[in-house]
């Protein structure tokens, strides 16, 4: 098709929610200021006009109450979508998410389902400082019973959000703040992408970069630079951390023999460690021709100062450097 329709990431998320709400009466949204105001980042702007304040519900400022109400609604047959203004606020909703949402289906022997989607913006880059800029996805990925999704493009966001809404289990859906304004091809008709299927964002032969969220884009830029120096980079975007499509990563590492894992979250205890370990445990080990390299944020709260904020997380040049160290040849 010659004229592919382009949408921003933000519009892709909104379009998915609207399309699902049109076809399924059980789907509704709740969160702080998501009604007339349209949400902290404007994702739900205009939705209250179409769906009314019963289905686009403004809530009090209590993440614990929002999450708790959503878990209850989900267990009674609704399909709630919760918007938390900043993913940092998950800390307040942690008991409801970790102790209730994640475990109820298991503890009720499968008789209770929790078809809940918790959408929340994460990441730095907006000058929102230490309490509004974190990447805490590894915390949620650690909890059995939660699915964790981190789409890097509008196309992936729309397809994966539909899959999340259709899923009978609680899903934490991380949207990177800086990706909201990025544009790309997004089909108009509803479609679903499988949860647990990685995407090869770029083909290459010398080194595999496993990157999540905004790091996918930084890695793609780095790959263009590295290509000029004759280094061919393959980029895998897992898209969903839980379940993780480790097979696609392993196949890529078997092909390239080298791997750099990049995420914005603090490197220590980050999800990159999990990916690195899975690779090392797999049959890809015997194909490794260099140590697995991890690149992540520094162990500091995200600074308010924009220069320091940038310095705290991996940038394109850091990725280039890491790849060069990994493809070391004399």
């Amino acid at each position, binding site marked *: 098709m010659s004229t592919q329709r382009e949408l921003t990431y933000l519009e892709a998320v909104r379009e998915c929610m609207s399309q699902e709400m049109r076809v399924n009466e059980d789907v509704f949204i709740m969160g702080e200021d998501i009604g007339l105001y349209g949400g902290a980042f404007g994702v739900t702007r205009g939705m209250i006009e179409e769906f009314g304040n019963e289905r686009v519900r403004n809530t009090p400022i209590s993440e614990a109450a929002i999450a708790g109400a959503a878990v209850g609604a989900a267990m009674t047959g609704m399909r709630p979508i919760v918007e938390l203004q900043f993913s940092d606020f998950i800390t307040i909703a942690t008991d409801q998410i970790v102790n209730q949402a994640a475990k109820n289906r298991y503890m009720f022997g499968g008789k209770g389902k929790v078809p809940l989607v918790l959408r929340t913006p994460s990441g730095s880059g907006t000058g929102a400082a230490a309490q509004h800029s974190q990447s805490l996805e590894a915390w949620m990925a650690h909890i059995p019973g939660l699915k964790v999704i981190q789409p890097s493009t509008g196309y992936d966001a729309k397809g994966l959000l539909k899959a999340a809404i259709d899923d009978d289990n609680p899903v934490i859906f991380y949207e990177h703040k800086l990706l909201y304004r990025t544009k790309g091809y997004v089909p108009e008709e509803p479609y679903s992408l499988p949860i647990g299927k990685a995407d090869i964002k770029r083909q290459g032969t010398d080194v595999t970069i496993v990157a999540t969220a905004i790091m996918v884009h930084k890695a793609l830029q780095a790959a263009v630079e590295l290509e000029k120096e004759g280094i061919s980079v393959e980029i895998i975007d897992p898209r969903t951390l839980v379940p993780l499509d480790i097979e696609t990563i392993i196949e890529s590492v078997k092909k390239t*023999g080298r791997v750099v894992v990049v995420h914005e979250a603090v490197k220590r205890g980050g999800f990159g460690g999990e990916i690195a370990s899975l690779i090392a445990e797999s049959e890809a*080990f*015997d*194909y*490794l*021709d*260099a140590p697995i390299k991890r690149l992540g944020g520094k162990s500091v709260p995200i600074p308010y100062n924009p220069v320091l904020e940038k310095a705290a997380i991996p940038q394109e040049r850091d990725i280039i450097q890491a790849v060069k160290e990994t493809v*070391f*040849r*004399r």
Partner: protein
Amino acid sequence: MATAVFMPKLSMTMETGTVIQWFKQEGDHVREGDVLLEVLTDKINIEVESYSTGTLLKIYYGHDQVVPVNHVIGYVGDAGEAVPDLPPSSESNIAKDSTEAQHEQKDQQVSHFAGPITQKIRATPVARRIARENGIELGAVIGSGPNGRVQKADIELAVAAQSKSASSLAPTTAKQTEAANRRVKLDGMRKVIAERMAASAYTAPHVTLTTEADMSRVVEVRSTLLPTIEKMTGARLSYTEIIVKAVASALARHSNVNVSLKEDVIEHHESVNIGLAVAVTNGLVVPVLKQADRKGLAELTVESKRLASLAREGRLLPDDMHGGTFTISNLGMYAIDTFTPIINQPESAILGVGRIHEKPVGVAGQIVLRPMMSLSLSFDHRVMDGAPAAAFLQEIKELLEEPYQLLA
């Protein structure tokens, strides 16, 4: 308390040393001053002595291992005393809590006298797998990765070489032929020479001037002085010393040649220190005859014989090679007439000396045979120009043609 044996720092520029051999084994008794091991620096082999008396408790690095200076390479102490299994990374690690040491003592005793140390081979998993599948011994492959880590590409070369030798009757491809070539890692002296020569050739615009000197008088001088000097010193005067003397005298008069370029400063040297390029196994060293312009031929003979023999035995000390202001490279023992020597940076010129052989030359309207010797002066055009360099070379030629001036 065990005393650490350190990789010595033998010159300002030395950063690492390579262990050549240990003369003692773990468990041997050593006395202060005993030679413990031999170490290779950039250019020389040197014997390292023990600073203490006791038992050699631990050897951390074996043959061919490269160790940064001031790193612990072993321990000497009381028999059975506890020392770390792995070399401490810095001096601070040496101090060990005594109770901790006692706890460790039992384990240590087992490993202390475990016999010859084995060097752990660094190789990537894929290199290990391909080596295993092809029956290649990892230790026999030179690693191109960090710290000599064997990588996939190294093993693939080895596999190709193996299949080449295994099926020498099979038609060979160009790649196999190439892969079968013997590969020797560029390191130690060879590496230093490679780096320095390349750096000199790339940074200094070299111009080489050549001329010939009639060596008739030098031949006379040598044969006259040889018995005297041999009687005085026991060393035989050679043409080299006379050439050194002539060059040193010329340099003293042409101070514009006795200079070094250091960044944007031209440094004029007070002393005339002549480096003599000496071929040794695997390479080349340049011991330095200090203050050569102030020494007589007898003194130069003794000194150059001493340095040459130390050079051949690989026992030159860093100080013997330090401070040169000008280098002479003599290929006179080969059938070489002229060549273009590369300047030994940071010096600014180098003299290449060819063979002495009889050639027909014109003298006062007659063609006569004379022992002629070619002189090739390479100079750094950044610091001097052709005319002064030519004047300097001419001075050398004239001194060699009238060598009695040197005795003045």
